[in-house]
């Protein structure tokens, strides 16, 4: 049986043989046990959710989880960010289905409610996600759902609507990208989808602005933990999205160039996006460790990046540390030893991401400078 990434099936059997992260860990002789623990816990939770929602979604709807579950990094304090995604003819019964799923999840008394913004734990429709990209109608919630659906989402059980919508969003980005597949100033075919890249970059900046907004709105409550998450898991999401755009270039993916058609690019992007953010990065390193002239540089960068992320997950999975960071007043962060440790991990991660994209020894350097900055 061939298991595909991005559906709940993927994370059940044979985790070790499937995960590019585990493969990279072995190749590098590293030990990222917190990542493994979180991935195993994700399996358990997804299995439980599968039992809870089984048979409730239809061919036109999917239960989609995002956030830490979507990244296969479920830890003890994780929220359950989910939506019932509907992609079909209007049917008032969809709300009843949503409520039925919501009740089943509540009754399990196992899962933490989604954040207070109201983006998740909702019924959500495909049309605005596909049609409202940019412009007045593209609300913060709409952008968030759309980008998370692309970058860190897993469907539970029935996945047909989820898969259709993800491809539908990609079609919007690719069909309206005027220079895609055209030759650029250096007479190279442009494979990198810039409309998509720009929206991902916009969302990353939106997250950083919303970070400041939440301090304002919540009187700095939860500052320390949010600050660490912004600099690590949120940054990872953007980095993996940027990489997905660059992965479209056959020189980066190493995959023979397909006919430059929108449908071919949707197929390859959809496949790459079906991996988790960390898995995407692992695929990149695994691909280039072996054949890059700068193998040592990439090896060190990967060790630093994944090592930092493993440390981050360990922090989140230690209830007293997480709780401490959640309650730490902003005025104490400069002297607090736990936050200092968190900041050191964040700095290591930041430097590794910087090296991955912006060091001139990286295969991504030219594309990052050429397409990712201005």
């Amino acid at each position, binding site marked *: 049986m*061939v298991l595909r990434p991005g559906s709940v099936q993927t994370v059940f059997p044979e985790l070790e043989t499937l995960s590019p992260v585990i493969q990279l860990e072995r190749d590098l002789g590293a030990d990222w046990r917190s990542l493994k623990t979180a991935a195993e816990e994700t399996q358990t939770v997804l299995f439980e959710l599968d039992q809870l929602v089984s048979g409730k979604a239809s*061919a*036109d709807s999917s239960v989609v989880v995002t956030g830490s579950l979507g990244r296969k990094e479920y830890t003890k304090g994780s929220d359950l960010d989910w939506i019932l995604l509907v992609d*079909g*003819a209007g049917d008032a019964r969809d709300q009843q289905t949503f409520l039925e799923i919501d009740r089943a999840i509540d009754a399990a008394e196992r899962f933490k409610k989604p954040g207070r913004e109201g983006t998740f734990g909702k019924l959500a429709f495909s049309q605005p996600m596909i049609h409202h990209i940019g412009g007045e109608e593209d609300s913060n919630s709409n952008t968030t759902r759309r980008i998370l659906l692309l970058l860190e989402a897993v469907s539970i059980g029935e996945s*047909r609507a989820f*898969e*259709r919508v993800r*491809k*539908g969003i*990609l*079609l919007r980005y690719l*069909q*309206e990208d*005027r220079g895609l*597949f*055209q*030759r650029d100033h250096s007479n190279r*075919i442009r494979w990198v989808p810039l409309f998509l890249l720009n929206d991902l970059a916009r969302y990353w900046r939106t997250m950083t602005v919303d970070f400041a907004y939440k301090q304002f709105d919540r009187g700095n409550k939860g500052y320390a933990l949010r600050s660490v998450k912004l600099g690590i898991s949120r940054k990872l999401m953007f980095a993996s999205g940027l990489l997905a755009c660059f992965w479209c270039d056959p020189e980066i993916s190493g995959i023979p160039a397909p*006919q*430059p*058609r*929108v*449908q*071919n690019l*949707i*197929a390859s992007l*959809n496949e790459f996006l079906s991996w988790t953010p960390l898995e995407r990065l692992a695929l990149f390193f695994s691909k280039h460790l072996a054949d890059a002239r700068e193998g040592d540089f990439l090896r060190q960068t990967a060790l630093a990046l994944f090592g930092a992320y493993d440390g981050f997950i360990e922090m989140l999975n230690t209830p007293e540390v997480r709780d401490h960071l959640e309650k730490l007043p902003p005025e104490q962060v400069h002297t607090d030893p736990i936050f200092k440790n968190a900041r050191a991990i964040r700095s290591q991660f930041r430097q590794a991401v910087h090296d991955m994209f912006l060091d001139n020894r990286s295969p991504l350097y030219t594309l990052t400078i050429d397409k990712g900055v201005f």
Partner: protein
Amino acid sequence: MTRIGFSTGALALGNFEKALALLRGKNTSAIELSALRTPELPKLIAALPSLDLKEFSYVAVHAPSFFTPEQEGTVVRQLMEVPKEYPIILHPDAVHDFAKWSDLQAQLLLENMDRRKADGRSARELQGWFNRFPEARLCLDLAHAQHVDPTMTEASQIISTLGSRICQVHISELDSNSHHHPMSYSALRAFAEVAYSIVKDAAFIIESNLVESPDPSVQIDDELEKVRNLLSRTEWDCAPAWTDQSPACVH
């Protein structure tokens, strides 16, 4: 020139004689004789020797889309009466016992399914069916493929991986309740993104439902014209409207 025609079921439900009469003089070169419901099949089989089909260079028969395991043997025996040169279109999800179909498999065209079905929808799922029926060919239903994946990525993958098996194409518009309709601008635009890459000897069978049309003759002409226009388009014609230079793929 690509052979184009209609499914009789799209013109007159369960009444192939009426459908054939509607098509007289329409300059169609292909026909699919539909027996989508099991009771229609014996009547069609019995009539086959006497039907005047000489204006069609391509004739196919559509097998029933549903039958019980108990009916399956009878359905297969009846289909064995279909002349060997007429392909038989079969919905893969209708099959209960593969072994019963083995003698017919070289005549079978497996059809890709719409999104309501649990199997036979994608290139990957169809490949599983062709592993069971290696001699069978494919009836590509563009509307079903669009229903499964409106971006036409799945259609494109079916064509790129199974293109050499395509013998016939079904074309119509499918609404979100899986009902067939005359083709709209939107459907034709989606089909145009892949139609140019379909093998040129595949027959195009229109399934747009005209059963309740007040003027079927006019609508038959309209649907035929839409398909002729579609097939006259090249890959270059199908590039996005903003493209101001030739697609990179031709270099």
